[in-house]
């Protein structure tokens, strides 16, 4: 050890340094543990349904026997406007239903099946799929589809086993061309198209097509069916307009501020509305974010406090050694080399605490990963945690080195 280190390390309080390492370790471990848990856990709710963001809700009216008799469980213009005016609504749009018949057939090595279907659409801005995957141009005969995962389940475990057809995975299904025929109510003016499954959704119990395809197909089949009705319909082509010529919407997609808001539930149950799909996902995802947010904030506060503990202990140590610092500077030692022993303390204590916190978060993850996998979580990358650890530790070191420099400068001239 150099003379300078021997001189300047005198008065070091191991207890204070240990206090810093412990508090910094606890703070960082909470922050890093919270982050890695969030990254791993969010996939339970997020990963399988990347088409619709978790703060979108799809609502419909509860179907009652009254509806069966009178028909129309759809939303009126007033009801839609009332929803739009709720404080928790960012924006909302109605589902557009196809006003025509749809038949889809699947051909699998000579054995095929055919079924009647339906289409719905929502404005493209609500669909979280890259533009290239979710677009249709007039004249193109390939239509992308997002279908409910439940339908694939129904096919695989219900229909396929009963009909002796092979079961199909999501990937395989997406690769098989789907022949689609759309025709007007009477079954005339048929148009043949190819369907391509762009994705499966847990949260949308429907078969979704791009909005512009829906507008086009609704118009063209209506025109063909009632050539005289032309002028009327073409004026009303705004997809999110409630006065769309297609029947009043039975479902509405809403972008909400915070999915866990109780006001949403109160409103929906007061109006006898239902949330479609997995209702708990949005609330659980919101709760996860909230809890992780609180945990990160607590860890952050402890980390900042530990930064001050280190600053104070180094500052106190330098204050005790102030005369020595001054004498060394009088001998001509550069500021940097006089501050170096303190910088080394700061760096080794911070890096030590940072490494311990990293190990702790890795152990925490090891402990929860098995049960979490059982809930369907994927494994996120550990890199964000390492990067955050490096950033936080670097900041603690930086602030302390700046404080050391300031203190050395203050000892340079002992003013009288």
């Amino acid at each position: 050890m150099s003379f300078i280190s021997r001189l300047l390390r005198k008065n070091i309080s191991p207890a204070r340094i240990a206090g810093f390492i412990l508090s910094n370790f606890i703070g960082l471990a909470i922050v890093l543990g919270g982050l890695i848990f969030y990254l791993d856990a969010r996939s339970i709710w997020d990963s399988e349904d990347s088409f619709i963001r978790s703060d979108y809700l799809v609502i419909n009216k509860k179907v009652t026997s009254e509806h069966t008799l009178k028909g129309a469980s759809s939303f009126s213009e007033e009801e839609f406007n009332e929803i739009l005016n709720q404080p928790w609504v960012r924006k909302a749009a109605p589902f557009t239903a196809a006003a025509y018949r749809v038949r889809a057939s699947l051909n699998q090595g000579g054995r095929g099946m055919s079924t009647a279907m339906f289409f719905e659409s929502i404005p493209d801005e609500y669909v979280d799929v890259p533009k290239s995957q979710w677009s249709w141009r007039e004249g193109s005969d390939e239509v992308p589809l997002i279908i409910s995962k439940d339908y694939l389940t129904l096919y695989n475990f219900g229909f396929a086993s009963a009909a002796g057809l092979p079961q199909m995975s999501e990937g395989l299904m997406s690769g098989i061309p789907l022949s689609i025929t759309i025709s007007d109510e009477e079954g005339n003016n048929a148009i043949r198209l190819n369907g391509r499954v762009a994705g499966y959704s847990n949260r949308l119990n429907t078969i979704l097509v791009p909005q512009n395809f829906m507008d086009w197909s609704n118009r063209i089949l209506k025109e063909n069916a009632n050539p005289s009705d032309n002028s009327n319909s073409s004026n009303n082509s705004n997809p999110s307009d409630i006065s769309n010529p297609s029947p009043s919407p039975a479902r509405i997609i809403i972008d909400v501020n915070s999915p866990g808001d109780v006001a949403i539930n109160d409103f929906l149950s007061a109006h006898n509305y239902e949330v479609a799909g997995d209702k708990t996902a949005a609330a659980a995802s919101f709760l996860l974010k909230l809890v992780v947010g609180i945990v990160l904030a607590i860890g952050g506060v402890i980390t900042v406090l530990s930064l001050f503990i280190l600053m104070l202990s180094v500052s106190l140590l330098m204050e005790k050694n102030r005369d020595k610092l001054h004498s060394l500077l009088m001998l001509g030692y550069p500021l940097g080399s006089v501050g170096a022993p303190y910088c080394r303390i700061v760096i080794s204590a911070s890096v030590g605490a940072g490494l311990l916190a990293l190990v702790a978060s890795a152990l925490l993850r090891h402990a929860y990963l098995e049960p979490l996998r059982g809930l369907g979580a994927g494994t996120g990358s550990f890199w964000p945690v390492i990067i955050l650890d490096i950033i936080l530790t670097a900041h603690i070191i930086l602030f302390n080195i700046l404080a050391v420099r300031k203190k050395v400068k203050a000892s340079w001239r002992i003013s009288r």
Partner: protein
Amino acid sequence: MITTISIEHALPRVFVSEKIPASDVWQTSLTLKRAERYLIEAASGGGKSSLCAYIFGARTDYEGRILFNQTDVAGFSIEKWQEIRRRHIAYLPQELSLFPELTAWENIQLKNRLTSHVPDSRIEEWMEMIGIAARRDYPCGRMSIGQQQRVAIIRSICQPFDFILLDEPVSHLDEENNRIAARMISEEANRQGAAIVSTSVGNPLLLADPIRLSL
């Protein structure tokens, strides 16, 4: 290289409101030149230590100006001062500023390792000459003031310098050791072509024909 140190109408601020006796240094123009020998004499409290601290950049509580080669030192950065302290001005403060927990050898090496100015053998010769070789590995805190003064004298010449400021360097030495110290310092100053500025309150460093200044 610093060839001149000019002190222009300088006065410690504590003296500003007082009437001070005529001085060769305060409230006048004085230029110290490289290669000369100066002996600054004054009664206790005349501001000798203050003058050394002003020239060395350790204190700034004075009126007037101090110039190195015609440049006012008031504008020097900390980094510039540190370089001056390593290469151009050596300083032996009255309070010695030795580290009591380090040995005589370590105290001297603290400076010499910074400047890499003289070989270890030279330092050992000096310690032998001035009679502290036996105390080489003694912590300075356990030495007498006279011994500490001798350690500090050796430490002060372990660097390149244009001027060496010695604040009452031999106040606790007998005449014999005073002569040895004066010879050692003069030899090193001659070798470097440097000036010696020594202060005294009655036991001056025994330099040959110094320019005497009174504060």
